[in-house]
């Protein structure tokens, strides 16, 4: 296991994307350790009396040159609301990098499927694949166009397909309804997905049926994030596994889905 750290970062920038999403850029005073796409950090939310435990958030992007990382925060409760209100100069304590990561594909035809705040790890994954000579395609689902974030960033790395539930952008419907889902193998035989569990389950079933490799990233509730409390388990064919150390990225065929 690579080493984990507890360290203070300083907020460099807080960029609001939509009414629900912000992107925080955090800087570390010295060199960052190696971080892999799909890994996450456990974040201490200060000044939020009802946020007792740390909050797990994916590493959204990493810049080793400037020692910065980005977090994509969706405001859903007191903790994420407080994070989304943080100002440049404030400091944030992270335990990181945590958990497993998406594996390098043996194919170069890959599809990255994200929904909601589940897009968070996919930018970093896309960049990582790109750097490794693989051109990712992105399929991003949202309720409506107003929830779509950072499309231009993805487009720098590969082709981007969109679905929205209300049809306000891209194909109307859920990600599974997008035409590209019909053209697996020629177009892709490796799927990475992160998003609402219901979405990931559909994708996992789809992949299983077609014998495509599929890695999913779970967002189970966590207390410790480092494999000590056994609160975050998910049932697998090898018994209960910790989402924080055996995951969050699992090959979907191991999950009891």
């Amino acid at each position, binding site marked *: 296991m690579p080493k984990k750290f507890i360290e203070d970062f300083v907020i460099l920038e807080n960029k609001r994307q939509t009414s629900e999403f912000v992107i925080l850029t955090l800087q570390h005073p010295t060199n960052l350790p190696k971080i892999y796409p799909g890994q996450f950090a456990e974040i201490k939310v200060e000044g939020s009396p009802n946020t*007792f435990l740390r909050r797990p958030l994916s590493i959204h992007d990493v810049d080793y040159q400037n020692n910065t990382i980005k977090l994509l925060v969706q405001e859903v409760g007191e903790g994420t609301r407080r994070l989304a209100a943080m100002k440049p100069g404030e400091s944030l304590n992270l335990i990181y990098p945590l958990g497993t990561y998406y594996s390098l594909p043996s194919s170069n035809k890959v599809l990255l499927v994200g929904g909601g705040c589940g897009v968070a790890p996919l930018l970093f994954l896309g960049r990582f694949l790109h750097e490794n000579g693989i051109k990712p395609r992105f399929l991003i689902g949202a309720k409506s166009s107003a929830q779509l974030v950072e499309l231009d960033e993805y487009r720098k790395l590969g082709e981007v397909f969109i679905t929205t539930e209300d049809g306000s952008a891209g194909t109307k419907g859920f990600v599974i309804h997008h035409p590209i889902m019909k053209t697996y193998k020629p177009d892709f035989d490796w799927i990475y997905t992160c998003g609402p569990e219901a979405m990931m389950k559909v994708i996992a079933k789809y992949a299983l049926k077609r014998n495509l490799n599929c890695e999913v990233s779970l967002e189970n509730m966590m*207390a410790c994030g480092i494999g000590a409390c056994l609160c975050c388990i998910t049932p697998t064919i090898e018994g209960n596994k910790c989402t924080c150390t055996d995951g969050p990225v699992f090959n979907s065929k191991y999950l009891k889905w």
Partner: protein
Amino acid sequence: MVDLSVNIGDLNLKNPVMTASGTFGYGVEYQDFIDINSLGGIIVKGTTGSPREGNPYPRMAETPQGMLNAVGLQNKGVDAFINEIWPKIRTFDTNIIVNVSGSTIEEYVETAEKLALVPDIVGIELNISCPNVKEGGMAFGTSCSSARQVTRAVRNVFPRHLMVKLSPNVTDIVEIAKEVEDAGADSISLVNTFLGMAIDAETRRPLLSTITGGLSGPCIKPIALRMVWQVADAVKVPVVGMGGISSASDAIEFLLAGASAIQVGTANFINPSISQEIVNGIADYLVRHNFNSVTELIGALELD
């Protein structure tokens, strides 16, 4: 230099700071954050006779300054502990105490017997207080007669340090403590978690798969401290206090109330280095208040 060492019966601890069962894994999980050998001791995860898968997800809910858990003793069983886990952790230079849980007296005894055969396991903590299993667990810790029975049965088969961990979910914890002392416990640790519950008002469903679970964290500290004070006053064996300890000052309060050592639980999740910070904080306190030894604090609460 101040002297931080304390004795709990025949166990000698470098300092009074241990980590609580179920909150510190097997120690290895925390190696990136602290020097495990700097602790007085660690209590490993609850170990049962056979492997257990524990309760279904969700097992955790956040509460005001605390959390509920319903892990339900997930562990690989005592055989796997001895064969796979123990070899990896036995070289830590600290007291490693094995938390023993079970559903029946037979299961407790069988587990303790197997651990007794591993000579370098210095002690066990008998968990008669787990609220998260259907059978046994807490039931043993909430009646005098069963607390006595299970303690005596394990005492008969385990020759080294026997710490018994009490449940706070009782009317009179002193009564139970005395039974357990009488039945041969070398020390008494308290408290385990309080039975609690959490509901999501929006979905109208319980937040735990098991509906109820065990409450831990700073929220329980005032009750735990009261119980430690009552028990330390009533028994002769050393008392190990816990419940919400999150700072050196919290730890010192438990020592003042009569605990000879303390365990840090839920706080490890929020700050994985906290146990070592508490060791340092106690040392600073002793210097600042002109004490030579931490033992001077034990039971030193000043009343008029």
